[in-house]
């Protein structure tokens, strides 16, 4: 998971196995809101990788990934922004 990581701070995200919905890792576990997601420093990555691997094994989540934050602590890429806040168009 860490192979191509750039940046200093991240959120840990994934999809919930049963529903597929986007979730973020918080102090209270996985949540669909990114607001309370733990901000992870680059040197803590290993620890959170272990957490996500465990939860993958427990069939709670799939497809874990680290979401890069910018200097202000906001989600950096457009893809991750859309993934967090939903589609940008009206149905």
């Amino acid at each position, binding site marked *: 998971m860490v192979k191509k990581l750039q940046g200093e701070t991240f959120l840990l995200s994934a999809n919930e196995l*049963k529903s*597929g*919905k986007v979730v973020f890792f918080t102090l209270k576990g996985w949540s669909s809101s990114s607001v309370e997601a733990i901000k992870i420093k680059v040197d803590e990555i290993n620890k959170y990788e272990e957490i996500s691997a465990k939860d993958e094994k427990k069939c709670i989540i*799939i497809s874990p990934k680290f979401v890069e934050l910018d200097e202000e602590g906001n989600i950096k890429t457009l893809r991750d922004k859309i*993934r967090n806040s939903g589609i940008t*168009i009206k149905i």
Partner: protein
Amino acid sequence: MYKYSDTDKKIITSRVKQFENQVKRRLEGKLTEEEFKPLRLMNGLYLQLHAYMLRVAIPYGELSSKQLRKIAFIADKYDRGYGHFTTRQNIQFNWPKLLDVPEILRELSSVEMHAIQTSGNCIRNISSDHLAGLTLNEIEDPRPWCEIIRKWSTFHPEFSFLPRKFKIAVIGCTEDRAAMLVHDIGLRIVERKNQVGFEVFVGGGQGRTPIIAKRIRAFLPKKDILNYLEAILTTYNQEGRRDNIYKARIKILVKELGIEKFKSLVEENFSKLSNKELEIDDKNIEEIFGFFRLPPLKSNTNQIPFKKNQEYQNWIKQNVIPHKIQGYSIVQISLKAPKKPPGDATSNQMIALAEISEKFSFSEIRVTHEQNLVLPHVSNKELFNLWNRLKIENLATSNLGLITDTICCPGMDYCALATARSIPISQKISKHFDNYLQQKEIGDLKIKISGCINACGHHHVGNIGILGLDRKGQEFYQITLGGSAKEDATIGEIVGPSFSENNLIEAIEKILNTYKKHKRNKSEDFLTVFRRIGIKEFKKDLYDNFTKKV
């Protein structure tokens, strides 16, 4: 319309049970995601940017009202009340829960639908001309042949793990409305010396290496079709590359070997196939054709009602074409209403359409590769009533074949592979060119938009193609010109450096101005002008004095 045989029913029912069991084992942790992923993909279930996505096959684009109602029901009960019709005559649900998918598949099987052959490296859902069986210039209806090929290809033991996915399209006349020449195999029904057979094309495709298919056989007798397909697929299976995903499609093999060498390998395999079982006899053919007879339409002299209503008249002119039976029309329904994502339909629209098709079109609906729908058999005298009814459902947009009838993939709003959004671009275009007369003045024009180089939105073959790119975190759009997905299929040429979203409409305006400047008469369309004057003129007008907006 094709009806499942008892064997079809058994296969589909047992497939649903099998998948239900696989999902159960996955949720219990008895299957890892690695083990489960190929199984879910075999049932059309992807994981996308926000959620799972289920792709359901609409074989050769044909739907009954009952099936459409079921799709609407699924969209309401298990999804978010809408579905997306794709460029390969499938429908995608964007938000299903894994837990619900077995039940969704069960619901689908109750109306003879499934999600098999919509993903993975197998022979995918066979696609066809949405006007199959409806026009006078057709040599033969391609749908029965799609069904014959479908029966042969579903669960073909040798072709379930091909080097890469494999797409086949079949058409029944010279006019290509199915983008047949950008398929791995394209089949066109032709007539030679009073014998009907197939002209066979191979090695077309889009994605990062767009290629127009090459002709491999000018004439193939009907009875040999499955043996010949078997020979092509066997050659591909043996020779196709499995070491590099970007070189694994048959188009690369054909390109690397050259069509003559590839052909000789195919012909050699073909001659070895003494497999009489695959030879189709007239009785078989007739039986399958029986499912595709026209409803009881009686030729008559009914005229299209004249009304002093400009909107209605525009719609008749733009969206309605004559049926081969006099007194009837084919009604094309645009899924490109202003502000709506191209190809999307809400469950309410689908329910309404199911009812409308029962009242006006013998319960039949077709899906087009250009992400629109068709009511195939409408009595002329009902057209005004139908238009009024469609209007209520926001399904009477008069823009078929015009600039706002864009093809568009889901792009970064949904797709995990995207490099940029595509739906907002199509919406900008439809907002900017909203006026019918303005569109009509521009004339026939196909804009096709993809959110990445995979080209699901067919940008390579758009008269104007738009490809979304990521330039250092910003969305940029590369424009290609002069592509065509029709019988004169052509890959578009890149016009030059890409544009930001804010500059894109101005760029399109400039391209259209060049076209207008060089147009010789009212009926000379964009593509004809482009082919006549070449890309240079467009380039010059586009990039000289371009005022960039930030």
